[in-house]
Every structure is written in structure tokens, then in C-alpha cells.
């Protein structure tokens, strides 16, 4: 099972801070495509992805237990 975290406008769009779903074996790109469709997320393309709190490329493969977070363009500071 995997935990998926959403922030900022993605959280508003999904309506949840996080969901639990099994994504093991999929690549980050596949996860993005799946979620964009499932939740009709317009701006998932512009978000970076973090796996276990570290930025991950589109071809990284998800393992069981991985925490996946979508990081919209940040605006701290």
C-alpha cells in the first residue's frame, strides 16, 4: 500500500490531504497519469514528485510502502 500526499491547489482539487492506494510497480509518470485522470487534476504536470521525502524523476518505480507527494511550484520565503 502507498500513501499519496497532496498540497496547495492539488489538495483543494482532490479534496483530501492524502489517500491510500497501492501503486507498487508503477513509475512516477504512470502514477501521475493515473491520478490526473482519476481526479481530473489539470496542473499535475507542473508539480514535482517526491518519493519518501526526496525528489524523484518520472521513471522512478514505486515500491510497497513508499510515500509519494506531489509538490506544486513552491512559494516559501
Amino acid at each position, binding site marked *: 500500500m502507498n500513501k499519496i*500526499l497532496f*498540497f*496547495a*491547489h492539488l489538495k*483543494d482539487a482532490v479534496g483530501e490531504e492524502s489517500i491510500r492506494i497501492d501503486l507498487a510497480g508503477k513509475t*512516477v509518470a504512470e502514477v501521475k497519469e493515473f491520478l490526473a485522470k482519476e481526479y481530473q487534476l489539470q496542473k499535475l504536470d*507542473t508539480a*514535482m*514528485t*517526491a518519493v519518501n*521525502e*526526496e*525528489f*524523484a*524523476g*518520472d521513471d522512478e518505480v514505486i515500491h510497497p510502502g513508499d510515500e509519494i*507527494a506531489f*509538490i*506544486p*511550484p*513552491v*512559494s*516559501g*520565503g
Partner: protein
Amino acid sequence: MNYYEISKEPIDIQAIIDKVVQRDAGAITTFIGTVRELTKGKKTLFLIYEAYESMAVKKLAQIGQEIEEKWPNSKVAITHRVGKLDITDIAVVIAVSTPHRADAYEANRYAIERIKEIVPIWKKEHWEDGEEWIGDQLEKVAYPTGKPEGADLHE
């Protein structure tokens, strides 16, 4: 001591400065980011800051490490606030100490630019006629790999 923090409470500037005092530092710079009322003529009422807290702390620590490698004998502490902030409230405090002053300015500037690139913190601006999540990078470079690189920095 925790040199890198996300705080739900107002930031005590002096406490951040105290973390970087060292006998061989002649200079300490601080950057204090405050909530500005006017941005491009539009009046902000208040802001909400949100963070992916555990990762944000790690990324702040990474920035500190980058600085301590680039500027020898420097010491860094950063605290970023989350929650609702009013005009003039403090969003972030960066303190950097170095032996000589030029480095203290440059390293501090590096920290804020890097925060705006890689630290998972977001602000939602609230105006009289609406609200919106702000994303600095939207108007800037996209990261093809999903991983921002130091080379993109405006140093």
C-alpha cells in the same frame, strides 16, 4: 539543537541568531521575510502558509549543508513559519555567520533563493476579491527531471 525548523508559532529572531554565534565569526547576516501588503498594486489581507513539514525540514538542512560546503566556516540556521500570517508578520528567518562579511551576505542570499526553489512550502494569498495558491516557479523554469539543480540558481 535544531538548526532547521518549521514553526506554527511566531519566530523569535534572536533565538535563530543565537544558533549561529561562533568565536571565529565576524559577521552574522539575517534575512527576515515579512508579509507585504501590496504586490503589483494588489492589496493582500493575509496569507496562509502550508508545508510538507518533514520534507521541508530535510530540504532546509540540505540548503544549510550546501552553504557550509560552499562557504567554509559558515554556520546556518533557518526557521520557516506556517499557518495564517498577517501583514508585517514574519514568514522566514535565515541566519548565517561567517568569518568575513562578504560571505555572510552571499551565503544568506543563496539560502533564500534556494528556499524558493526546493523547499516544499506554499502560500495562499487572500485578497478582498479572492484567494489563490502562489507558485513562484510557474513563471520560471520547469524541471524536466522533476529535480531542481543548483545550476538553475541565480547566483
